[in-house]
């Protein structure tokens, strides 16, 4: 299928009739996913959004339910988001991240209705990366600039128009008025795909085992040394999903709210007794790496990283996960103490 660039605004506007439409929009000198007012606001020629689109399905703050304390008990009201959504122009890495989050919110015992509902009602229209950034390393994690994992449609920028690859039935149903792609277009598309090469790759092979064997390695003391313990890596990570649940009260009622939290914060694991199983940056940082490249692999058979590079760009002290993984790769396996 073919979608011409000039038709995109109209296309998005028409989608708005049935969907909440999210797309990258310009903000300051970067782009962010926002619900768009006008189709024309969508910017598809962007490098990568500042924060990942996970906030659309898993908002930084969301009400789980509200309650009112009354004379004869408590009235509870569940908050549910049933709106149909389209995330338009999502990068393949971000799309892939949802398949990882799926495993978080639907574990072997419990299902999180908030995320899963939204996920079910959301169509992902991806856009391939003609020019991956230097901080991108998606290919090292099994993805790629035109990877279709998790997507319903994938757009490939071939100049004046996008070649639309249909990946799911859901996606196909959206494309009512698009013409078929010609051979020329298809050729262009494969040309584009070929040109899109990544400059960075890291070797993820065997990293889980390395981590298994080096939990107590002193390297962790040094790796984490410059970390200042903020949450900017976790908040800009498309797969990080830690959260906190708090009550906010007003008048006689209140709401139970879930907010993103970060495993990098000391309070995250602090016991009421004052004991903290992960008392310093070292343990917290180790846990973050372990979680993504070891624990998650162990439980879900997939690495909880898509190689989007945001944590590298957003880190105030330029901690670079690629360097860290390289260092771990360089370790001689040592036995657990």
């Amino acid at each position, binding site marked *: 299928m073919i979608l011409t660039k000039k038709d995109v605004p109209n296309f998005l506007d028409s989608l708005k009739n049935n969907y909440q439409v999210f797309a990258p929009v*310009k903000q300051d000198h970067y782009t962010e996913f926002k619900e768009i007012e006008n189709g024309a606001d969508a910017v598809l020629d962007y490098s990568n959004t500042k924060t990942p689109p996970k906030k659309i399905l898993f908002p930084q703050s969301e009400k789980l339910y509200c309650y009112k304390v009354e004379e004869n008990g408590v009235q509870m009201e569940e908050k549910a988001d049933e709106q149909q959504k389209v995330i338009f122009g999502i990068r393949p890495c971000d799309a892939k991240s949802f398949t990882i989050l799926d495993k978080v919110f639907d574990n072997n015992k419990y299902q999180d209705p908030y995320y899963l509902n939204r996920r079910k009602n959301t169509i992902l229209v991806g856009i391939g990366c003609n020019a991956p950034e230097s901080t991108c390393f998606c290919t090292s994690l099994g993805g790629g600039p035109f990877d279709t994992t998790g997507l319903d449609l994938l757009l490939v920028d071939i100049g004046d128009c996008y070649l639309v690859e249909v990946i799911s039935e859901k996606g196909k149903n959206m494309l009512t008025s698009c013409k078929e792609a010609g051979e020329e277009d298809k050729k262009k598309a494969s040309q584009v795909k070929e040109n899109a090469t990544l400059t960075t790759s890291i070797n993820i092979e065997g990293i889980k085992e390395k981590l298994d064997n080096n939990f107590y390695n002193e390297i962790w003391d040094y790796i984490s040394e410059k970390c200042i313990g903020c949450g*900017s890596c976790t*908040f800009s990570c498309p797969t990080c999903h830690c959260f906190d649940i708090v009550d906010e009260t007003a008048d006689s009622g209140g709401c139970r709210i879930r907010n993103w939290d970060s495993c990098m914060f000391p309070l995250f694991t602090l016991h009421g007794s004052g004991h903290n199983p992960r008392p310093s940056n070292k343990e917290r940082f180790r846990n973050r790496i372990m979680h993504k490249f070891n624990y998650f692999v162990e439980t879900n058979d997939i690495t909880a990283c898509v190689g989007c590079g945001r944590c590298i760009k957003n*880190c105030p*002290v330029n901690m670079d996960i690629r360097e860290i993984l390289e260092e771990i790769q360089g370790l001689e396996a040592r036995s657990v103490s």
Partner: protein
Amino acid sequence: MQSITTAVQNSAKKLLEENKVDVVIGFKKGTIPLRSTPVFIRDSNDADKLEWNYYCENNLANYLRNKDQKIGVVVKGCDSRSIVALMKENQLTRDNLYLIGVPCSGMIDRKKVNRIIGDKEILETNCNEDSLIIKTKDSEQTIKLNEVMHNSCLKCNHKNPVIYDEMVAEPVSENSNTDFSEIKEFEEKPAEERKNFFIEELSKCIRCYACRNSCPMCYCQECFVDSTNPEWIGKSAENVQDNLFFQAVRVFHLAGRCVDCGACERACPMDINLGLLTRKLYKDTTEMFNTEAGANLEDAPALSTYNMDDPQPFLLKE
């Protein structure tokens, strides 16, 4: 720049070889353009990793508290002032520090560069005397350094360290008086406009607390944001009012202690203009109480002292 780099390396090497320090904290080359990154050098052979350039933006005073080692640290003006401020608050012992003083010509603000070149990836950069050359995939652009210098650096009047054990280069000339023009300009704007500006800015906040954690002076065991009893503030980043509340209280808490190093603003992943807040307090403490945080070891922090004739413009007009 290169000569400073060499001098820093030599100094670090010597300190480590002579066992005068256990570790030297400085900067090494970053992994992406426009970045340097803090580094901890323990082996004199690694000293040549150290470098000095326009990207050494972090405040290294942040790494000095609660260490029982003898630390050599590369300090520019603002780092040294933070160290002074921390010493006044009994957080650092001078004897445990060896300060390698570097005259600072300012640091480049990545945000400003990005605003100029737009949403294009920077592949390579180069600095000469007074300009920055930016290479992107399909262009090369030369920008005057002072156009992309960080605001706090442009206004800085302590480019040279205020205390040090050695200076690795000749001091640079200092701005003679403090320039608060941008704050004054902002103060002149209508209240509504100021409010809207901050609301707009703080709507970007994701509460990652990078601003707080990057600040050497933010060392409270329990930040007021994290306090549950009393619970001063909501934790939800979507409450812009609370985000502003957080920033207002944060900068207020730093009043008279903040050396205006700009680390918080540089740390912000969301590029929020925090300088407009920190610098306001910096201006007010300077103007009203005639003190400069961290400028010397003698003066008590502005809010830890008082004068009989302090101004009281805040009183209800009668």
